[in-house]
């Protein structure tokens, strides 16, 4: 018999403590729910054997009172996060069959606290995309309306959480890849500060942008997972030594000072219903005694161009490791070393990945480096300085997560620039390294959910999460999948 659908880790812990639920039952139930919703294509693989084994082990630990903080948390991982002796492919043909020889730091930390990893989740190839249409293993459907995309690139992760196939998931966010699909699927998605979470064991896309973060039904679970996975790591020199705070305390006291970016709210591409919901939220926050003021950020049109120059440059460098020699796919059509590289990469990578490698190669090439790459790095400083300036005066910046709700398959896939502009409200946080969260705050008259985004200064996750909890209490959509 199917178990009830759980919407919070607290509920699961409660039932585990009462003894009317076991981790094994829970894992078996999630496996059943994944199978029965196979058409969504969220999971690339269920780690059935290791998940069932862990469940039994964690059940024993619970009995003996030795269980970790995440005992009973059944979590999926995006298919670009390594788990020792398990397959990982970045949803690319070039890594088909690859088995990781080590675990990502985030995976180690989850397992140390007795979380159960149930499988790997579909995504856009190498996390490049905003609709999950770029996976070599088929598109993911939005569980709230199967004609619609789930968003991307962590679309399998957000779809799985929204559809109740696992309680939570890890995604990665380079330009919005956690927050945009969270908005489209009606779940909570957090991109931590750059350096808050170790990237060791994350298949690299753009190393000065990438961050791993949680996708959950509520702020409490996101905070708890962040608390476990965050912190210094000897395997990632960019992982920060700033102490990890008690994020799960979620205690916001006093009144907040919030800025909203005038240009974002006035943006003509923004759906009027989303604009109106943000205006309502602003009014509600003011009524509760918080200060909310408009600020100018005259750089909106530069965000996506700067993002694409820098991320493609980093991607072109990161992806040169896929050579048909060390691991993964190797073309049977090659006849010498050079054709091993060229045929393997041409046959193994999908069109969007090749497009980005080519653009990145161009902006880094002799004669164009200063005009494009170096220019974009300078723009990045301008954007960062201005964003930091706003966050010196204000606690948070409030803005939409996405210009609209989930769109139909094929609607934007023919036009790369249209697709790139999906990220217009999310790339700012990655370009400037600050934390940002997308909260399910509304439901459109078209039936689809949308998120509202909050950003804070670097390493202010404690404040960001605490205020998120407060803000989400303003809306009647408190838990994502109840919309299902």
């Amino acid at each position, binding site marked *: 018999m199917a178990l009830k659908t759980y919407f919070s880790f607290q509920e699961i812990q409660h039932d585990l403590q009462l003894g009317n639920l076991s981790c094994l039952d829970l894992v078996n139930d999630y496996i059943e729910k994944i199978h029965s919703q196979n058409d969504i294509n969220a999971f690339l693989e269920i780690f059935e054997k290791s998940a069932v084994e862990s469940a039994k082990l964690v059940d024993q630990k619970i009995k003996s009172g030795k269980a970790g903080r995440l005992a009973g948390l059944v979590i999926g991982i995006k298919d670009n996060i390594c788990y020792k002796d398990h397959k990982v492919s970045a949803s690319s043909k070039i890594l088909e069959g690859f088995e990781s020889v080590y675990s990502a730091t985030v995976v180690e930390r989850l397992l140390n606290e007795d979380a159960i990893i149930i499988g790997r989740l579909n995504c856009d190839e190498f996390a490049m995309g905003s609709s999950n249409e770029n996976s070599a293993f088929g598109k993911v459907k939005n569980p709230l309306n199967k004609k619609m995309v789930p968003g991307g690139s962590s679309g399998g992760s957000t779809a799985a959480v929204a559809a109740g196939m696992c309680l939570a998931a890890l995604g990665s966010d380079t330009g919005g890849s956690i927050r945009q699909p969270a908005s489209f699927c009606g779940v909570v998605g957090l991109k931590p500060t750059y350096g808050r979470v170790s990237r060791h064991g994350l298949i690299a896309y753009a190393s000065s942008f990438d961050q791993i973060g949680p996708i959950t039904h509520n702020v409490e679970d996101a905070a708890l997972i962040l608390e476990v996975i965050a912190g210094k790591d000897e395997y990632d020199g960019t992982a920060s030594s700033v102490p990890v705070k008690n994020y799960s305390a979620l205690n916001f006291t006093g009144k907040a000072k919030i800025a909203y970016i005038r240009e974002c709210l006035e943006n003509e591409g923004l759906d009027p219903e989303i604009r109106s919901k943000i205006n309502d939220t602003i009014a509600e926050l003011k009524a509760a005694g918080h200060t909310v003021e408009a600020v100018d950020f005259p750089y909106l049109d530069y965000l996506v161009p700067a993002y694409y120059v820098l991320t493609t440059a980093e991607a072109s460098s990161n992806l040169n490791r896929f050579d048909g020699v060390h691991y993964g796919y190797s073309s049977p059509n090659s006849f010498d*070393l050079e054709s091993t590289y060229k045929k393997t990469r041409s046959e193994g990578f999908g069109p969007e990945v090749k497009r980005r490698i080519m*653009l990145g190669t161009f902006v880094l090439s002799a004669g164009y480096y200063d005009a494009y790459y170096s220019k974009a790095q300078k723009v990045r400083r301008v954007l960062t300085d201005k964003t930091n300036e706003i966050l010196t005066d204000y606690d948070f910046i409030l803005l939409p997560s996405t210009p609209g709700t989930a769109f139909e398959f094929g609607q934007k896939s023919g036009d790369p620039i249209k697709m790139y502009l999906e990220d217009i409200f999310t790339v700012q946080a990655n370009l400037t390294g600050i934390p940002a969260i997308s909260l399910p705050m509304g439901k459109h008259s078209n039936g689809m959910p949308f998120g509202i985004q909050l950003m804070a200064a670097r390493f202010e996750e404690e404040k960001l999460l605490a205020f998120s909890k407060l803000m989400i209490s303003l809306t009647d959509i408190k838990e994502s999948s109840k919309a299902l």
Partner: protein
Amino acid sequence: MKIDHKTVDHLAHLARLEFENESKEAIVNDLNRILSFVEKLDELNTDNVSPLIYMTDETNVLREDSIHETISHAQALKNAPKKDSDYFRVPKFVEKK
């Protein structure tokens, strides 16, 4: 900047990729469109702005230089498409004169 077929051939070689016929037409078009989109950046004055290169405040992250095995020889070869017991195998690329 206008990208032509010759530039694409050069870039493709640098990136160790191949584009032929339709896919070459498509990448020429896409790159031109994307470049004119990103050239928006030229409108922003960045005189006297230094490039932002590092996103982390961590400096000189050091550790003891101690020897330890991260993965075994066999594990390192585990995913190789072509290998023997000791080495990755590649096509011959140095000719005897």
